[in-house]
């Protein structure tokens, strides 16, 4: 940190919150609010004379409220920058600090929050994690029994710079404990709280156990665990060392911690699976390895930076394997536990990776993006005619579209990722996605259904998941009926409901619409935009007289080749049982209504060559 603070190209803005972020890769404009310290940063030399005279003591959050701090203090001894700040919630305005500061005259009670704006090319999000509060698990007694502590509290209690100067004592009586139990997976691997594995708790629990054992040879340490996970380099050897050091490992998740009211000792009940029987262990202290959880303000930050979040609440990466450092928004990178629970080596690695990903952008004058962006035809956009719309802006997961009444919708090309959701949502065909235009897709539908369409399954697949799934089915040599015909779109959000209707008008036997699983969408919320539309479409089709069994929506990931083959096989079986004449009848019956719905397309001069073989809507109606 000190190195970073001295680096000429690094500015540390401590005490500062991100208020608003605008712009796009290479051109972000960030509004920041610097909270008042009531101490002038340039004048404070960190001598601490003010804290010495301050009469107010408040709980110290850095020491997890185990120790006090003054109402004017630094967060902790190694804080960078080392500038004191007044906690105005507790200050009594006795002004003793002002006197103590003397000639430096660094204290300024009139300071106000300061708004600043910085222009940056890239952003790295490294906001870390928070610790799960185990008091919500009643059976472990945290918060009720003083001698039940969390691993973070143990870190402070055993730390030489901590409140007890490294002397581990029991909170109930201040005596050094002779025994300690460590309980793993508190709030993690637990569907009631957090389903994921926190990843690094096994290692820090073993580390703490070994440290305690080194400091107090006679200490009796028991670790209760479900599974010990030590997959990284040298970790398993470390675990073996702990076993050799005499630390007791019991495989079994405790069901109850209760306190002996006379001694303050704790009795842990668990099943020792190796013994196959219940054990009761009495220890003087219990340490809970609490889960790593997302920062409480992660949602707020994700809204400001247009970031997606995984089901666990941590920030989501662009692609779990291929782009694990990039956020879905270009120019924003993730580092450390903000993206998911991580230990120190992994956080350092990801931090370095994020810095180099950012440097890649900053070292260039121009930045190439994919050419598949969307564009607005201002003559068709009804917003330009002063009408209220904005459907495209609501569908865009990146906030790349701005709609002002009276003006045609504007797409910030640099922000557009090319999912095509807006093009499909626009009710007036005013938006086209380059390389995935209506004309191009309609031409594919027309060609694929030219010959005996009632025997075919037309499949719309998203580029990232379902198309990959179909590929995987082929690579894995899963056999499936040859009746399917695929059309690739970037995201299922691009699959316009009118494409499905057009497919049935062209006589298709079955239509499959597929995309990513909700949490896997490559366009943040593209899948949801599509899913809502496909659900509506089901009732529309039913009203038109098309059997809903002929229309299927499936979420297929790139790894699910087997699922793709299965879905096509099942659909083929449905199709095989259908009388082709019935399919033709249903399609003919719906044709008039479909024609009415596709009227705008029929009138579009760009699409005339595609529809010229079809009877005009008017004729069908007659």
């Amino acid at each position, binding site marked *: 940190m000190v190195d970073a603070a001295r680096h000429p190209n690094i500015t540390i803005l401590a005490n500062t919150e991100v208020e608003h972020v605008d712009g796009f890769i290479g051109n972000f404009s960030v509004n920041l609010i610097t909270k008042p310290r009531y101490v002038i940063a340039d004048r404070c030399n960190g001598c601490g004379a003010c804290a010495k005279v301050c009469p107010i003591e408040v709980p110290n959050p850095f020491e997890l409220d185990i120790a006090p701090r003054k109402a004017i203090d630094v967060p902790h001894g190694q804080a960078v920058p080392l500038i004191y700040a007044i906690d105005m919630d507790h200050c009594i305005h006795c002004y003793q600090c002002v006197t103590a500061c003397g000639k430096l005259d660094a204290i300024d009670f009139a300071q106000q929050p300061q708004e600043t704006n910085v222009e940056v090319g890239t952003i790295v999000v490294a906001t870390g994690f928070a610790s799960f509060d185990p008091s919500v698990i009643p059976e472990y007694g945290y918060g009720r029994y003083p001698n039940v502590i969390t691993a973070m509290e143990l870190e402070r209690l055993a730390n030489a710079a901590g409140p007890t100067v490294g002397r581990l004592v029991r909170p109930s009586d201040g005596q050094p404990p002779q025994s300690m139990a460590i309980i793993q997976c508190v709030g993690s691997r637990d569907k009631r709280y957090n389903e994921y594995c926190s990843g690094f708790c096994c290692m820090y629990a073993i580390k703490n156990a070994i440290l305690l054992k080194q400091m107090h040879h006679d200490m009796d340490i028991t670790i209760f665990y479900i599974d010990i996970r030590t997959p990284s380099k040298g970790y398993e050897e470390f675990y073996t060392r702990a076993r050799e050091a005499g630390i007791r490992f019991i495989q*079994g998740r405790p069901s109850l911690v209760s306190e002996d009211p006379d001694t303050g000792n704790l009795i842990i009940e668990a099943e020792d699976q190796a013994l196959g029987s219940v054990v009761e262990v009495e220890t003087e202290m219990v340490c809970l390895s609490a889960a790593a959880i997302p920062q409480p303000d992660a949602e707020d930050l994700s809204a400001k930076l247009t970031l997606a979040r995984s089901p666990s609440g941590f920030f989501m990466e662009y692609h779990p394997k291929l782009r694990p450092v990039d956020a879905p928004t270009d120019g924003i990178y993730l580092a450390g536990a903000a993206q998911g629970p991580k230990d120190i080596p992994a956080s350092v690695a990801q931090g370095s990776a994020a810095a180099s990903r950012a440097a890649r952008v900053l070292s260039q004058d121009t930045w190439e993006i994919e050419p598949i962006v969307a564009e607005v035809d201002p003559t068709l956009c009804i917003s330009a005619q002063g009408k209220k719309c904005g459907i495209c802006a609501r569908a865009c997961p990146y906030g790349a579209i701005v709609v002002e009444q009276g003006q045609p919708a504007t797409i910030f090309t640099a922000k557009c990722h090319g999912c095509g959701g807006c093009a499909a949502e626009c009710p007036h065909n005013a938006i086209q996605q380059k390389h995935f235009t209506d004309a191009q897709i309609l031409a594919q539908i027309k060609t694929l259904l030219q010959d005996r369409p009632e025997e075919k399954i037309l499949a719309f697949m998203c580029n990232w998941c379902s198309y990959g799934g179909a590929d995987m089915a082929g690579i894995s040599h899963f056999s499936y009926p040859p009746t399917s015909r695929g059309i690739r779109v970037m995201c299922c959000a691009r699959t316009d409901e009118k494409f499905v209707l057009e497919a049935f008008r062209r006589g298709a036997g079955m239509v499959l619409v597929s995309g990513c699983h909700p949490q896997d969408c490559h366009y943040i919320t593209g899948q949801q935009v599509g899913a809502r539309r496909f659900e509506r479409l089901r009732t529309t089709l039913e009203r038109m007289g098309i059997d809903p069994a002929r229309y299927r929506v499936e979420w297929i990931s790139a790894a699910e080749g087997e699922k793709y083959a299965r879905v096509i096989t099942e659909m083929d079986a449905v199709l095989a049982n259908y009388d082709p004449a019935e399919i033709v009848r249903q399609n003919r019956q719906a044709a008039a209504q479909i024609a009415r719905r596709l009227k705008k397309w029929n009138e579009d001069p760009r699409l005339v060559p595609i529809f010229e073989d079809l009877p005009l809507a008017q004729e069908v109606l007659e």
Partner: protein
Amino acid sequence: MTPHPTQLDPHLAARVMERPGGQHLQTCMACGTCASVCLVRRFHPVFNPRRVLHQASLGMREAVLSSPEIWLCSACDACYPRCPQEIHISEVMGALRDLAIEEGYQAPGPFPTVDRVTCSGCAVCARVCPYEAIGPAADEDDPSRQTAHVDHTRCLHCGLCVAACPSGAISLEAVNDQEILTRVTAEGWLERQGLLAGGQEPRCLAFVCQWSIRSDAAWERAQRFGDQVRVVPLPCSGRVDPAMVLWALSRGVDAVLVVGCDDDECHYQRGTYAGRSKIYLLREMMATMGYEQERVHFARQASDDRYGLERHIQEMLATVTTLPTPVAVTIG
């Protein structure tokens, strides 16, 4: 039984999972929380829900379905709120029992027996049973009469019906009125004089739900009161019969304490509620009759309260000693 690949039924897990309640079988990661919280294990050390689940998911059909273990779970659901995988274990057990019955296995019991001559078909037992295991049906000998019938696939022998039956027509092995009274009077305990009978120190009878005694240590701590307190374990506090309480008071016992589980921890779902209601009603009656209702008390024992049982007894003894004039209860 050693699982051998050829003896494993690859379809067993799927068959359990397609039944209501069985669907979470295979998410179990064998952490052992259920096994360590399970109340049944104190009385049946062979019982281990983790192992039953694991055997079922491996496909050890014979071992699981023929085992008495699947019938031991009383659906108290002490494990369910603590299971990190949210597996409703009692429902999985239910699914396994259904399968066992389908395959011709029978529940081991013991089951309550109904004296069909004295049974009046009033259906009080049906209302009190937490498992819908007992209820009136046409009598076998005289179809014009209704008598209580016990469904052996559902009954978990809590004894609530035995206590509730107004005709005394139901009996259950080991928890009959007579057997409980024998335990109260054993070693001439009632002959010793309590305060009511002019003795020097109070004498207290404690009916304790056996599931609320968490460990052998807790049981031993309750014994240290010696002759002063007679602790009688019951399968459930709901098994307490108010007549039994009054009988004890009329025989010179100074106080009767009933200890049951907390509401959401009852081993028989709502047995503790039944027991508590009975005692509260009895206290009301005693007050109207002019007796000190403090002599009868229902105490709730939370499962994480290791020292609760002895504390409840101490408090009861303290209360009784402070009561002003001993008035002997007589039943006429």
